[in-house]
């Protein structure tokens, strides 16, 4: 559409060879504003589109302003960060219902969860309807006890001494990205194997992702939160959970 079709066609009408164009005729071809602008050189006032491009033209990266295509940022920490049961007084990973899992829902578990530094990010979305990829990674070790070390050996809290982690987006828990793990200190299992303390084979790593296909314009937040059971009277407790190398990043597409 914005290919120029002059108001007064060159070579014909008043601009035909031998004709006598008036000042108005010439002026209209210089500047004759219309809705689409294609009747004069006024087309360059914001009316140019793909029709004006040479067929061989391919834009290069340098032509595009920074932040136009995508935006991204990452946060992270390498120092260990420890969480202790005292921070989560009264919370439990055992449900009152007696089923084979005997565990609460993610919604209930996540009530006590706290955000982990290095696994939280706050970012601005300049485009309404933007697509956003969140990605995070960390590993952890915990000392939740599976079975008692003294005879008679018993499984503690039905084996529920585990930490749980949750993705929160704008303060709302995402149940797809909720993880509950396992006791990190096996100690004694019913088969009689021995071994005290944290067993590193029971540590877990999580490199997760979340694709949000439409975000509103404005500020948003995403963070991974942790909760530990802390009901000493029921032996449902993770005394300490160490979260190691961690990072969270977002990639935003318009």
């Amino acid at each position: 559409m914005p290919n120029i079709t002059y108001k007064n066609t060159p070579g014909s009408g008043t601009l035909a060879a031998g004709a006598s164009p008036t000042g108005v005729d010439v002026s209209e071809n210089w500047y004759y504003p219309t809705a689409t602008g294609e009747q004069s050189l006024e087309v360059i006032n914001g009316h140019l589109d793909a029709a004006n491009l040479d067929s061989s033209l391919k834009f290069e990266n340098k032509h595009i302003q920074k932040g136009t295509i995508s935006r991204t940022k990452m946060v992270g920490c390498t120092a260990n960060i420890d969480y202790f049961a005292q921070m989560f007084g009264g919370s439990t990973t055992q449900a009152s219902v007696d089923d084979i899992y005997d565990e609460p829902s993610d919604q209930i578990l996540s009530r006590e969860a706290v955000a982990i530094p290095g696994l939280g990010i706050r970012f601005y979305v300049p485009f309404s309807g933007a697509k956003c990829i969140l990605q995070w990674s960390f590993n952890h070790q915990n000392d939740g006890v599976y079975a008692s070390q003294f005879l008679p050996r018993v499984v503690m809290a039905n084996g529920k001494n585990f930490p749980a982690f949750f993705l929160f987006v704008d303060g709302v828990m995402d149940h797809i990205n909720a993880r509950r793990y396992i006791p990190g200190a096996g100690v004694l299992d019913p088969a009689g194997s021995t071994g005290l303390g944290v067993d590193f084979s029971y540590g877990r790593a999580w490199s997760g992702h979340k694709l949000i296909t439409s975000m509103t314009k404005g500020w948003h937040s995403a963070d991974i939160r942790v909760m530990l059971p802390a009901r000493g009277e029921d032996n449902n407790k993770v005394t300490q959970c160490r979260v190691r190398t961690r990072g969270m990043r977002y990639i935003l597409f318009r």
Partner: protein
Amino acid sequence: MGEINFTPFEEEEAYTATGLSNRFIQLGQQGIDDLTKTAFQDGCLNENHTPSFLSFCGTSEFPAADTVASQIAMLGVAYTSGWSTVSSTQTGLSYWNATTGAGSVVMNYPPNDGVWGPIQDGAANNLMVTLPASVPLGDPQFNDRFGLDALLVMLNVQFERFEFYDSDGDPIDGNSPAGASGAAVCIQVSNDNVNWYHLYLGDSAWVDTTGLASGSAPYRYRVTERRVECFGQEAKTTSLVVSSQNFPSRRDVSIRTIINASSLANTITAQNVKGAISSVRYIRAVVSIIKGKGGDPMHDKTVTARIRKANLSVLALRANEVDPDA
């Protein structure tokens, strides 16, 4: 072409209709209507001028809702590799599907390299993303028009537990029945949602010395494959799941991969020849069960995996892999 090459009016030159017409053509049809690269300043384009870098994105997430664990239908889906005592062959989602006895741990040649099944939500839905249309990645005409050269795929899976049963179907516990058993996860592609293909790196020099594998050589390396192993106490306390004394596995698997023209070129036919498909529309996640090689012989046991959470995302990028300056 592409620039305004304006011929100035000279002194004493009359303003004739022809002279004016020539200048209008120079300014308009020869200039503004055929803009080239040099007509644009660096940084002249912003979000008002450019399309989204994504021509499509979609995600599939299981389970659909939060609930207590015992009510998650997804945990009811059993990904199982068993054993037929009649034919002495592997059954179900068997990774080492050519294994016939305790002394052999063998996989058939592609495309029958293991039996794989889709991750499901317990309501007959597969963890799959469907593109709006079939995409012929690498087709120059398609790429020139849409600038779509690759698909970014992201997968996360959390295995809940592994279960082990003897030939009578009784749970095995108390010892170490696993023998390094576990599961493998892969990304598969399809153009019709019927025939599914692995993404291979290419040919492999490895050969089957047992002679048990069926099909045509060579073996191939699945580039998206990730494994988890059920280890130690995770494996020993399997049966305790029925006595409220969980010690599950709860291991996470993540896959990040790009599907491009090369990926499709390395899909293989039923004859183990590359180039099975040249377009893709469906992407899914699949699982196969690995019976362990070590410890007690596992070939005639049954191994079952359960999955608690899974999400698969696909992003169609406008990212041309060709050097723009070439």
